[in-house]
């Protein structure tokens, strides 16, 4: 490390006095023009003396000039109060200069844990306020809230304790975890900027107020964090301290998951909510009450026994009676950490799942429609519409949850564009091939080379040889075929296929089902927010290979018993992206889409803690989207158009359940610099005790005195005329 890096100045402005060092030089120059004139007789002796002593005189004059200049420079240096900081992070020590306190408050939601009704965050604020109150006049304060990401509340040091106190009071806890490495980076940046702007804050003290939760602090053992901490502690005049607000053996119960078993809720079918309750306690927690609330109304309740450090699952079936935006909430009884005792789920309920079946030849999708909606009722769970190819351009695809293409011959560029836009904005697409399908056209229009342009999850290669093929379920790994596990006689394995199209799945695609020869049969890929599924053979018996004699159909899949359940699973899979983005975690971005043709230019978003914001709409690709990144609180967010006061889209923002684990990092895993301060704070030492750094101005003043004596001596010696 360069030696200069160690030097700090208490009052660097005083260095300007070093300009006074020019005074002796100026006097010297001036005196060359200021002298008395005297007539003189005894000149030969003077000349002789000068001749013999010229060198000595010049030397002593330079020496005197140097001494006088040095005296003034050193005096200015002493005024500037130089401090050579040798880092020693222990609390206590010398004083001198002002201190910059960087208050780092743990904002992870475990800080909401309450002791006698008081959250730890409030305790942290109080401790910080106390530290600010104990500070000295001229001390600066920066405030950083440890979060995910961390937030620099006061970056440029504040010098008024009231301001700091006010900022502390208005500090709100984000409902998320905390990122230690990022926080350390922010601390480093804050210190660096303060050092530049406020050089007189020569001592720096970073004080963490935290419960030492493992989720936040487990990174402390990583090389990156260790390196950052060491770097911080190595900064001249810098010390670290930690105020431990947590306690060992704290118990907690949390709702860690809430979801529906089906991707979409309809009026026709019962929706099943599944909640997971996790215990972070060492003993069993029996008879815990779990409630289901729909739109804030308690509709069901159950009691569960939660094993120590284990989980319990609760299912709530519920049938909605109105097609609208609903919110489901599962809630536990309050404990000391209330924040994680509830979870929300946004449930847009529709009358039925709407599917558009587009056929390349009438009758091609008949079996599919039948399989999707076998019962002729007034309130079918799936409402299927069959139409010819022209409907792709003619109708508004956005009104359908899924589009099924059956043996379409070729696509125009416009059709391909409409379909791509539909899938990208969350629609489901299921493509069945057949004898009409022109593979080159499919590849060209739907199978772009780039992921952004692609609609099909695979490139089509060639037709297979005619033979009898069956399905290989690939160990039922994929969710589409997973329900068939254990039902070998369901017909899936014996489904007769005689002809199919060989294809190469794209890198992002997954193969859900294969043919017995190993070629992929059903390939899936997420395209934008939607899902695209491609079946390598035909779904209808109308696809016939006429090259053989007699002509043979491509498959008997449509009439096989495995067909209806597989098609149902494929549909559920295809529409899984339909409501994606409605349920996110704290910190995630909220993105909403509105159908094209909206005349409004903005939406109004409201949320918990009084969030209310107008968000502009961005129009791209025929739809209007808005986004919101400030989801720092958990709860329900609602976006609606200005014109409509109600009936907007609802979004559920939930916390990351990892922070519910109140386990702490062991003190001995903390780096030495922080551990030392822990011991010290436990023994009651003050947090405001100043950091290291030694004063040198006294030594310099002594040197100045010495030089003054030296100067007098040389001047006397010179006055005497030398030796």
């Amino acid at each position, binding site marked *: 490390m360069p030696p200069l890096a160690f030097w700090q100045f208490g009052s660097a402005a005083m260095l300007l006095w070093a300009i006074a060092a020019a005074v002796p030089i100026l006097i010297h120059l001036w005196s060359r023009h200021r002298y008395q004139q005297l007539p003189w*007789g005894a000149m030969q002796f003077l000349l002789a003396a000068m001749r013999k002593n010229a060198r000595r005189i010049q030397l002593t004059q330079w020496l005197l000039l140097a001494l006088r200049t040095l005296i003034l420079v050193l005096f200015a240096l002493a005024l500037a109060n130089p401090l050579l900081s040798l880092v020693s992070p222990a609390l206590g020590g010398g004083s001198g200069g002002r201190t910059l306190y960087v208050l780092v408050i743990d904002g992870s939601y475990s800080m909401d844990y309450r002791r006698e009704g008081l959250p730890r965050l409030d305790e942290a604020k109080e401790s910080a306020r106390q530290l600010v109150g104990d500070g000295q006049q001229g001390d600066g304060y920066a405030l950083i809230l440890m979060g995910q990401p961390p937030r620099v509340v006061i970056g440029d040091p504040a010098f008024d304790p009231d301001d700091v106190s006010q900022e502390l009071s208005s500090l709100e806890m984000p409902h998320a975890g905390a990122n230690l490495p990022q926080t350390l980076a922010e601390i480093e940046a804050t210190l660096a900027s303060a050092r530049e702007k406020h050089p007189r804050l020569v001592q720096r003290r970073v004080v963490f107020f935290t419960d030492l939760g493992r989720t936040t602090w487990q990174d402390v053992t990583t090389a990156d964090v260790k390196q950052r901490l060491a770097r911080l502690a190595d900064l001249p005049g810098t010390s670290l301290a930690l105020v431990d607000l947590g306690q060992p053996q704290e118990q907690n119960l949390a709702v860690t998951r809430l979801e529906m078993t089906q991707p979409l809720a309809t009026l026709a079918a019962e929706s099943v909510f599944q909640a997971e309750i996790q215990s972070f306690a060492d003993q069993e927690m029996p008879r815990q009450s779990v409630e289901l609330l729909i739109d804030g109304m308690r509709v069901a309740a159950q009691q569960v026994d939660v094993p120590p450090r284990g989980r319990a699952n609760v299912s709530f079936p519920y049938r909605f009676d109105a097609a609208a935006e609903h919110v489901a909430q599962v809630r536990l009884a309050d404990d000391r950490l209330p924040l994680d005792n509830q979870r929300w789920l946004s449930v847009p309920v529709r009358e039925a799942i709407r599917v558009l079946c587009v056929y390349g030849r009438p009758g091609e999708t008949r079996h599919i429609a039948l399989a999707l909606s076998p019962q002729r009722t007034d309130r079918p769970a799936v409402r299927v519409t069959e139409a010819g190819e022209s409907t792709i351009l003619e109708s508004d695809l956005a009104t359908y949850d899924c589009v099924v293409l059956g043996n379409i011959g070729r696509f125009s560029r416009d059709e391909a564009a409409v379909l791509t836009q539909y899938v990208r904005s969350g629609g489901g697409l299921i493509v069945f091939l057949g004898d009409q399908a022109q593979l080159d056209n499919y590849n060209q229009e739907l199978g772009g080379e780039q992921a952004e342009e692609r609609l099909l999850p695979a490139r089509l290669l060639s037709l297979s040889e005619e033979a009898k093929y069956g399905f290989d379920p690939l160990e039922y790994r994929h969710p589409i075929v997973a329900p068939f596990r254990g039902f070998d006689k369901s017909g899936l394995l014996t489904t007769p296929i005689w002809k199919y199209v060989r294809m190469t799945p794209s890198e992002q695609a997954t193969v859900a089902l294969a043919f017995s020869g190993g070629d992929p049969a059903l390939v899936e890929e997420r395209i934008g927010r939607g899902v695209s599924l491609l079946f390598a053979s035909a779904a209808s018996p109308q696809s016939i290979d006429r090259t053989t004699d007699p002509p043979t159909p491509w498959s008997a899949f449509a009439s096989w018993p495995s067909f209806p359940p597989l098609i149902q699973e494929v549909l559920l899979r295809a529409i899984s992206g339909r409501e994606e983005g409605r349920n996110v975690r704290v910190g995630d971005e909220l993105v909403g889409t509105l159908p094209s043709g909206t005349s409004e230019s903005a939406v109004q978003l409201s949320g918990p803690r009084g969030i209310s914001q107008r968000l502009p709409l961005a129009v791209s690709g025929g739809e209007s989207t808005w986004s919101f990144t400030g989801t720092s609180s958990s709860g329900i967010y609602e976006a609606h158009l200005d014109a409509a006061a109600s009936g907007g889209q609802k979004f559920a923002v939930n916390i990351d359940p990892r922070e519910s684990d109140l386990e702490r990092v062991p003190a001995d895993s903390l780096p030495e610099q922080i551990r030392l301060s822990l011991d010290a704070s436990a023994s009651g030492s003050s947090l405001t005790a100043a950091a290291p750094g030694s004063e040198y101005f006294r030594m310099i003043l002594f040197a100045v005195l010495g030089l003054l004596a030296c100067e007098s001596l040389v001047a006397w010696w010179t006055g005497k005329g030398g030796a």
Partner: protein
Amino acid sequence: MAQAPISIDPRTLAKLSGLHLRARHIVEGYVAGLHRSPYHGFSIEFAEHREYAPGDDLKYVDWKVFGRTDKFYLKQYEDETNLLAYLVLDVSESMTYKSDPKSLSKLEYAQCLAATVAWLVLQQQDAAGLVTFDSQIRSLVRPASSPQHLQQLLHVMESATSGKKTAAGPIFHELAERLKKRGVVIILSDFFDDVPSLLAGLKHFRHRRHDVILLHVLDPAEISFQFQRPTQFLALEEFPDVLVDPPSLRKAYQREFSAFQKHLEQGARSMAMDYVVVPTDRPLDVTLSAFLSSRMARVR
């Protein structure tokens, strides 16, 4: 018992204008302070005895002869009444220097001294002559013993203008040639010159059997060099002007100066000449006393 002589301070003298007035002031002050006249012993050599006649001063009676013969005989001295005193006064530019504006310059001091000596010599009916010189002999007044001669001496001294000085040695050679009659040569100068050359010139006087007295007139500042401020010294003679910081050179200067003085003094003593340093800040009576007492001691 001797009455303490009244101090004749050069500063007091500086307030008086005119050499005559100054000389009178000195002589009156000085003579008033003495019981005995200092006129004895100016280079008087015994020649023969003569018989006492009434009116003769009893102090010249040779009592040893009286003891043996019961007759009064007086000691007869050669040139008894015609002691020749040559006052050689340096009037070069360097002699005009004075460190104290309220005091006398070296030249003025030397003039006072010379005038006083001339007065005293003339009062004793001895003869006093005067030579002034700088780069050459500026005036030469032949010795005379008439009381009116003093006026002429004082006039010549006063009207002497200072000029550049070259080497004094050759001037002394020339002077020794010109002062044919043996006498006392009293040289009043600062002797700022090459010492060997000076001594060579002085030796010529001795060769001519002159009794030589060197009155080394010096300003106290020239001895001590006690200047503090940076100073440009403007040379009074043929030297360049120099700008110096006096404190840093004082020691070296003093060394140079005392070496010069010592050399001169040793040279003078080796030739049996009187050498008296005459600082211009010393009261004139003190200077006179020192000079005359050393003189008398030497004669005895």
